Structures are given as structure tokens and as C-alpha cells.
């Protein structure tokens, strides 16, 4: 595995967080020298971090300049379609492959209580990553990881208009139960409904409030 340099890795994490939480807004110009000064990094590390983010589809590099990738309504459809299928696959594989350790981890994550919607999202993300890990297919886990970044931006866009989502927690508990019982089709079904519900809600809010141009 090729390691990124320490400073590139750190700069990447910082920028990833700023972009996925919309602190750096879609379409915003990214000035390497200014970012290096502001964050206290070498310009090389910022440049390398941005290159990684281009690969993540979070930064765009048109012929001139660098921008935070724009958000389009069609992205929502595309991302949700891919995630829906891959998450369902992950749930199925997890039901087949999960070890005792995986089940302890999933159970622990289910029992954790979020204090607010933002924390709930973090927990939800951890839960999905743990499912992907329990599927014991690193290619699947890597692909899903990259989709979380894209998904997170849509979620943060809707965040101010969202209510608490206790139903998500309930479906997590049912999902762990299905995985424990090695019930592949039930695990797939719960996951499918869970993801669909999530995207429908986000889609509604984004459309209703006109948060992205169609």
C-alpha cells in the first residue's frame, strides 16, 4: 500500500471534512497558496491533498483553476442508485460472513445513543462502515467509503431542515438481528428500505426547499 506523506494525509483529512460538511461550499474556488497559509501546511501537501480529492469527485479541475465540486440534483439519483445496490450487497455478504467480533461491534454501535442529528449521522456512517467491514470484501468497503463522502454533502445540505430520525436506529437493530441469524434476504430487505427511506427524505427536502438547481 502506498502511504501518503504525513502532511498530505493530514491536509487531505482537513479538506475532506471541510468540503463534505459544506464549510467549503460547492463551486468555491480553491487557492492553494491561501489554503497552505491558513492551515499551516506546505503548498505541496495541499496540492497533493487536492489531487486525492479530485479522485474522490469532491474537487473539480477544469482547464483553469480548482473548485469544490458542484452539487447537481442528478448526482443525488446517481449516488443513491449505486449506494442502494452496494449497501444491499454488503448486508447480504455480512449476513454470510460476519464473525463474532463483527457482531459485538455492530451491537455496540446500535446501542449508542446520538444527542443530535449531526451525531446521528456520524453514528449511522460508522454503522454502515462496520457492515461493509463485516462483509469481508475490501473492494466493496473501499467503494462504499468513497460514496459516503459524496452522500454526506447531500445530507449536510438537508440537515437544517431535517427532523430527528429515530426510525433509522430501529432498522439498525433489526438488521443486526438478521445478520446474527444469517438471514441474507431479510438483511438485504432491511438495508434496502433503510437506504431508500433516507434518500427519499433527503430528496423531498432538497426539492421542496429548492436547495439545488435541477
Amino acid at each position, binding site marked *: 500500500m502506498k502511504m501518503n506523506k504525513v*502532511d498530505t494525509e*493530514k491536509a487531505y483529512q482537513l479538506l475532506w471534512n471541510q468540503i463534505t460538511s459544506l464549510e467549503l461550499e460547492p463551486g468555491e474556488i480553491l487557492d492553494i497558496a491561501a489554503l497552505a497559509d491558513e492551515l499551516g501546511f506546505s503548498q505541496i501537501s495541499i496540492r497533493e491533498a487536492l489531487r486525492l480529492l479530485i479522485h474522490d469527485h469532491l474537487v473539480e479541475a477544469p482547464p483553469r483553476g480548482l473548485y469544490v465540486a458542484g452539487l447537481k440534483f442528478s448526482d443525488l439519483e446517481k449516488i443513491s442508485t449505486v449506494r442502494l445496490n452496494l449497501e444491499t450487497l454488503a448486508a447480504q455478504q455480512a449476513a454470510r460472513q460476519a464473525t463474532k467480533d463483527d457482531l459485538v461491534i455492530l451491537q455496540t454501535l446500535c446501542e449508542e445513543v446520538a444527542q443530535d442529528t449531526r451525531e446521528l449521522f456520524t453514528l449511522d456512517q460508522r454503522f454502515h462502515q*462496520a457492515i461493509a467491514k463485516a462483509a469481508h470484501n475490501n473492494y466493496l468497503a473501499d467503494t462504499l467509503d468513497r460514496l459516503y463522502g459524496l452522500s454526506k454533502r447531500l445530507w449536510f445540505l438537508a440537515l437544517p431542515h431535517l427532523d430527528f430520525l429515530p426510525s433509522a436506529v430501529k432498522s439498525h437493530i433489526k438488521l443486526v438481528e438478521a445478520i446474527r441469524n444469517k438471514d441474507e434476504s431479510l438483511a438485504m430487505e432491511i438495508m434496502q428500505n433503510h437506504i431508500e427511506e433516507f434518500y427519499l427524505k433527503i430528496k423531498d427536502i432538497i426539492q421542496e426547499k429548492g436547495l439545488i438547481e435541477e
Partner: protein
Amino acid sequence: MNKKNQPESLVLGIDTGGTYTDGVLLEYNTHRIIAAHKSLTTKRDFSIGIENVIKEIELADPAAIQMVSISTTLATNAIAEGKGKRVALFLIGYDPDLIDSFDMGNRFATPHYFYIEGGHDLHGGEKAPLDLQDLLEKTRAVQQKVDAIAVSSYFSPRNPDHEIRAQNAIASVCDLPIVLGHQLSTSLGSVERATTAALNASLLAVLQEFIIAVRRAMENRGINAPLMVVRGDGTLMNDEFAAQSPVETIHSGPAASAIGGRFLSGEDQALVLDVGGTTTDLALIKDGKVTVSETGASVSGYQTKVKAANLFSIGLGGDSQIRMGRGNQITIGPERVVPLAYLAHLHPNVKERLKALSKRGWPAPYPRELEYWFMQREAADHTTFTAREQQVIDILKSGPKPATEVLKTMGLLDPSQIDLDNLWREEIIGKSGFTPTDILHIEAKHTPWDIEASQAALSVFSHYLNWDEDRFQQAFWETVTEKITKAVLHFLTEKEIPTENGTGHDLALWFLNNTLIPAHDQLETSVNLKIPLIGIGAPAKVILDKTAQVFNTKLVLPEHYQVANAAGAVAGSVMVTEEILIYPQLSAGNVDVIGYYLQARDGREEIEEFEQAIDKAKHIAGENALSAALRSGADNPQVEIEVIQDGMDSYRIKAKAVGKPRLEG
């Protein structure tokens, strides 16, 4: 590339000592020093002092530099001052009663340690199942209170399974960095392994920030070269390795000095004495190499499993404060202050005040009136001070003042009545006093600053003692030589130095005293050092001259000995070691040997035949060491493999890959 035709390989070595941060620009192949720079060490943030060196050292062409290498007391200092990050330590399969009964809980370097069921036995068999549930509950409970997590499992070098499973689980529930004991140490001492893991975890972010700052400074100066960091045994690792195992940089400063002394002098057998501003550090060169401590580095009372040079350090340096001790004894150090010559050089009115003090008839001037306090830097705007701190700052704003005057203004009698630790530590106020550097000014041996101020201070001391000034100087030099001589004797013999017990009947003490100052009419005693002394650091020449005489040996001062420490930062080899354990797999009831386990860093496998296991271990260890050495910047590393018996039927296969650093233009 043909080395002979290559005109120059320029490298930049930087050493951060307790007082100064030194930099040298050096031609790697010929060891020729082209430029040197000295900057004050900034303890509050070491990277500032290093940035200053990188910014200011004379460089004709920064782009031509092929390597930057740094030795730093950052890790040692962070541990000593509690600046490391907060760590939760999980001890899997450790016996709480045993730890308690030996009162070892305070040896883990963190108050947040937790016992978890699990662990293995000597044969790598599972002692008890890992209680993952409990581990995760404890992680959830503590994760908001710490910045990193360390895990050490009982006998993990024999079987790291529980550490790896713990890491996997912890990483699923939180984002904190995780350090595993078996990755840092393959030896079986469970307490030291846990301590090493906890210290490493606490230093991860510290070293990461440091590397980010240094790389930014390099870029600003137009230097595009690999960055190396010196380990505690003087070898080099690249910055990526350093960021993962910061604990290995403990004691890297003194190790670099020793290697620099060897590098510049070419002496293969010698005792290196590095006289810095704060301390004098001793290290032994044997067959061209710095000797390494058998037990592992210890820092701030914590015993680790980190390989480090065998060092001894005493609190005596050029800027050690000279004071009057009990019974009118001259004491030197361990506190480091700014020499009065330098303070007066910056603030001429200090000189005038010192001169006036030395001429004052009544009340007679006291040596303690020679301690000055001064503003060292402006505090950042957002800093808030206590009322007392603010008062001191207000008093010092108009310029340096004697400590006695500051206290008097505040209506206090003794500095112990106020807590100014914060101001000292943040280097907002500084302390100045009479130092060996001042004596060197008076004796015209080293005179960059104000001689008159030093002279006035000397006259206060000798006046107070009713001595003439020559007698004071003589007594001072005797004290210096005695301290260093005792340090050398203790370091080389590992014996305790006898102390004055009042009876006068101790023969060892008499030998020592008579050797230092011959006093017997008939008996002459002497001790001969069979190897030369190598002196390093600006005051080395004068400070060590008499010590070399006592030991009847020569004092070697290599060219540029003042900055040999910084040269040492680039002089080490890049080294990576890789260990694999082979131990028997036993039948049920531990009766028969039915095969062998081969335990490498990342996994364990079973092999039936012993010979086959050894061959395979040698192969894997060699390959791993080689590729790790290449990744950490070694040029054409050579691999040596050693098989060491480690208990019954157990073997340790150790591969060491060593090469010169790869220089990149």
C-alpha cells in the same frame, strides 16, 4: 550516477539542544562544513527555532540540498513537560493484582489505563478469550477524554491476535489513532511494552505537527529534499516512519552529537563530551559506533523498550547558573539562564546597574542580586494571565530587573511565594544570571558579548566571599573539572561516586580527591583514560581542557566542533530492524513439540520442521527489513541476519538493513 564525478552532495543537519538549535550545511562525501547557523531553541514550540535555522542559514542554492535531517529533543521534552496528548491504555490479559502489588500502575505514563480479559501465554496459546464487549464499552466511556489509544496484550509478541482484534474493534467505533504494543517491541517485558505503546500514542500528534511545520519551512526556503529524523541510537529514519514511531526519537539529540564527534574526528574509540548550554552529555564510541543501552531508553522515570544510545547527562553547561550554595560552596547548574554578558549586550542599562552594584559599599551586594528577570517575548493577544503574572509582566515591561527588586515591588520575600511556571514555560519571561559563559568572557576565552557586565558580577561574588578574583576563578574551574571528572568515572564504571561522609576515612574518596587536586606529600594518584576525549559544543575547548589533563589523555577538538551535534544529524546510517520469533507449538497439555510457530509482525504461521521454520524466518525477516529500509530512504541497504536463542526452543531471528541515506537532488 558516478559518485566521483558528482561535484557536491549538499545536506542540511539540524540539532535542537536545550539552549541552541544548530544547523550545518555540509558536503556529504567529504564531510566538509560549508555554513553553520545558531538559533535559540524555542521550547514552547521546537519548530520555531528550526524554522529560523532553515530560514537564515547561508545557502547559495537551496534547491541543491539533497537531504535535511533533524535530531530533536521534542519527544523527550514533551514527555518531561506533560505536553504529550492524553492516552487511554488497554491492558489485555494483564493481572491487576500483580500490577497493584508492585505498585506499577504509575509506570504506564497515563492515568487512563484499563484491564481487559484476554491475553496469551508464553507458547502463544490463548490464556483467556478476549472480552471485546468490555473493551468497546470502556472505549465509549473514555473516548471523549483522550486523544489516542494504546493497546498492549499479554505475550503479544508471541501472539498479537488480541491486539489486532482490539484495534479493529476500536477503529469501528471511534476515529482516535491506535498504537499496538507488539508493533513497537518484540521483547516480552509486558509493563515496558505497555509504557512504550502509551508514550508512542501520546507523541503521535506532537511529531506529526512538527513534521508538517518543518516541511512547510523547507518549502518556504525552496528546499525540496527528503526529511529524516534521528533515532535515539543515532540512526536515521524518514519522516513517515518518525510520524508512526515518535517514541524512537527519545534521546536523539545526544546520540547525534556523539555520532557527529566521530564523523568529524574520525576517531573510532573515544569518549564524546558534548558541552551544551544546559547540559554536558557523555557517550562512548567503540569500534566507530555509539554504544547502545541494553535496557532501553528511560525518560522522565518511564522505562521503555526503545533502543537508545548509552548516555549520561549532567546539568552543567555554558549557561548553567552559578550560585552560592550552603557553606559558601560555589554551585553550578542545573538551572539554565541567559548569561549576564548577553543580557547586558542587549540592554546596556543592565551593565550600568551591575557596575553600580559591584561598587556599592553598603549594604554589601549579594550574589542573589545578580539574577535578572526580563520579558522574552510578547504573549499572544488572547492569552490571559493571573493577577500575579500580569503584575510581573507590568514590572518587566520597562526592561530587565533584578529578581530581588521584582519581588520587593510585589511585597514578597521569596520567589516560591508566586507561581510563575506558566510564564517561564511559555518563554514569556526569561531569567539571566552569572554563568560559565561570563567567566569565559572575563578570561577572554570567548567574548562575543559584554565583558564589563561579567566582570562586575565576578566582583560581586568574590567580594561576598572575601576572596580575590583569581581565587574565585580557580575555585570555579576546580568545581567544573570535579563535576565532569566524576561524571566520566560514573559513566565508564557504572559505580556510585563516594560522597563526603565527614569521617575522612573513605579510601575511594581520598583517591578521587587526591587525583583531582594532588595533596599528599608521598603518594601520587592518577587515572588514565586509554581513549581520547572528543569535545563538542562551543565551550568544549576551555571547559574540557583540565578534565583531559586529569585523565592523562588528549582532548580532540575536530574542526567545527562547535556544531558537530548538527553534523551528527546527517552522519548516521538509515537502519531498519525486523524480528521474527520462532517458538514451539505444543500438543495438548503442553507435552510434546508438534511443530513450530513463526511469528512475524503481521501474522503467525505454523511450520512442522524446525530447519524449515528458521530458513523461512530468515527469508521473511531479510525481505521485510530490506523493503522497509528502502522505503525509509536507505541507499543500497545491506542486510545482516542473526539468529538468537531466546529461552527454551525459542529463537529470535533478527534482520538488520543498513545503508547510507539516499540523497535526492
